[in-house]
């Protein structure tokens, strides 16, 4: 990436993607806007059918937006400027797209021949842990191995911009760790990465910033810290039976949100204050709060709350 390029590697402005026509028209992406900064790892999360892949395909230039504008590397249109963009991008589709009767080595070799500045075939296979499967036909690979092959092809060159659509789906734990390591290496060398995933821990571990999509729209965006900050933290503890109705006054969330297994779980927007009050109350009463834990909201909890909060907002879904 050249130095005089702007900080924003991707700019998406009010983008819509429509499938079908007339009465069967369906808007999979509805007015999405975001930016991805140069060298950043940006994750798109969402429920099934949220519009993640539809959005990424627009960024990849595989389809034109029905409405809105996308600009890459400062001002390039993903479709119109495809020939200028492609040498600088790598892409991993949600599903492979490889010829099933070729071997792994033949597939990587074919793509190496089609990619300017490609690393060697053995190196690409080594990096993705496919060396021992080099002579195996693609059709005989497991789901996780196919994702590794896809990653090997997507990262053959050192792309300025890398699109990874659910890169670790079907991978075992070792494969996931290896994939994460390679993604981090690419980002450390300056690549911008756009990642879609169902695995919240993956986004939490890798992403600099993320957006959560729900039913074609971005429900929230920011760093993990920013997103979870908008959601209540949790206080959890066990309390002797006789004291359960006597929780201290002044807690921001005095009503227990859960009492599973005899434990009390409180949701609070003021974790430090409420934890202090609770501990002070317990100390003054000589009460032991068994297995006391205080923790901020996790990304998973934020994600579930967002999905639930927007669960009924699809009445305005455009069917024109």
């Amino acid at each position, binding site marked *: 990436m050249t130095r005089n390029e702007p900080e924003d590697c991707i700019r998406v402005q009010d983008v819509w993607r429509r*499938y079908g026509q007339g009465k069967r028209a369906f808007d999979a992406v509805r007015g999405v806007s975001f930016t991805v900064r140069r060298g950043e790892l940006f994750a798109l999360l969402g429920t099934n059918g949220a519009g993640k892949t539809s959005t990424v395909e627009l960024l*990849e230039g*595989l389809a034109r937006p029905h409405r809105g504008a996308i600009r890459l590397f400062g001002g390039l249109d993903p479709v119109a400027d495809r*020939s200028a963009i*492609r*040498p600088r*991008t790598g*892409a991993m*589709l949600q*599903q*492979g*797209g*490889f*010829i*099933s*009767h*070729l071997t792994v080595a*033949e597939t990587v070799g*074919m*793509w190496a*021949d*089609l*990619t*300017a500045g490609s690393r060697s075939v053995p190196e690409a296979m080594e990096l993705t842990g496919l060396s021992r499967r080099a002579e195996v036909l693609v059709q005989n690979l497991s789901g996780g191995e196919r994702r590794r092959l896809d990653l090997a092809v997507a990262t053959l060159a050192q792309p300025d911009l890398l*699109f990874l659509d659910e890169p670790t789906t079907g991978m075992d734990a070792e494969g996931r760790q290896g994939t994460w390591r390679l993604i981090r290496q690419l980002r450390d060398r300056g690549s911008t990465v756009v990642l879609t995933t169902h695995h919240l821990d993956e986004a939490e571990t890798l992403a600099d910033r993320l957006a959560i999509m729900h039913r074609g729209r971005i429900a929230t965006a920011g760093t993990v810290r920013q997103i979870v900050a908008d959601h209540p933290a949790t206080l959890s503890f066990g309390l002797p039976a006789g004291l359960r109705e006597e929780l201290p006054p002044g807690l921001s969330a005095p009503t227990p949100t859960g009492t599973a297994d005899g434990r009390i779980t409180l949701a609070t927007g003021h974790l430090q204050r409420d934890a202090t009050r609770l501990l002070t109350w317990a100390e003054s009463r000589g009460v032991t709060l068994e297995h006391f834990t205080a923790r901020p909201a996790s990304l998973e909890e934020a994600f579930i709350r967002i999905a639930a909060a927007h669960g009924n907002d699809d009445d305005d879904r455009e069917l024109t």
Partner: protein
Amino acid sequence: MKSVDLAHMKTLFRIEWKLFRRIKGNYVFVVFAPLMIIVAMRFVHDQLDLAAHGLNAAPVMAATATGVLLIFSLYSSVTGLYVARREELVLKRLRTGQVSDLAILTGGASMYVVVTVAQIAAVAAAVSVMSGTGVRQPLTALAGLLTGCALMAAMAATTAALCRTAESVMVATLPALFVLPMISGVYLPREVLPAPLGDLLVLAPLSATVDLIRSGWSAELTALDTLARIALSLAWTALFAWIAARRFRWEPRT
């Protein structure tokens, strides 16, 4: 077309050739299809009494064989190739890389063009040996062959655009497999048809190719007629390419 496109086409050609060679049945098809065509043509043309229509057997056989091979070896195969690669998401995957759309389509098809041209060359040589008649206008025959290949590839892309699935290829190609050779003088020389109909069918998509190939052996076309046939074939090719450019689908329908 840029040199990088040619390099990409070469890579895709090599891959398709590798896959083609892995299926032993393809060797049988490549070798025996031309032989079967020659045997069948001899039988049919003996029944037709070509001389009564002022026709010579060698040019008609060469044109018929070329037409049949263009349709079955090239058009039918390339249509199936495009649809199969689309269903496997290979076309979509290729479009995420540095290969141009034109190189994607022509690279894969070029392997079948080479196989078909080799088959046609073998049949042409056999016809020449059998009839003792050599090619009199090689450039005209070559023009017929090249325009025919381009036309069939463009038709294949158009047909693939209309196919929803790999299973529908068989149905979608039926008109080209059965109707096109009938109206283009491939199965029957147009001279044996009633004059007004035969004259009209000179405009059919593959008629120009058939005429050019025939004239390669018989030298029956004038220079002006030759140019007109080439222009006609190119016009059909441009029409099919135009439709394909607008309707071709790079991934399965959702």
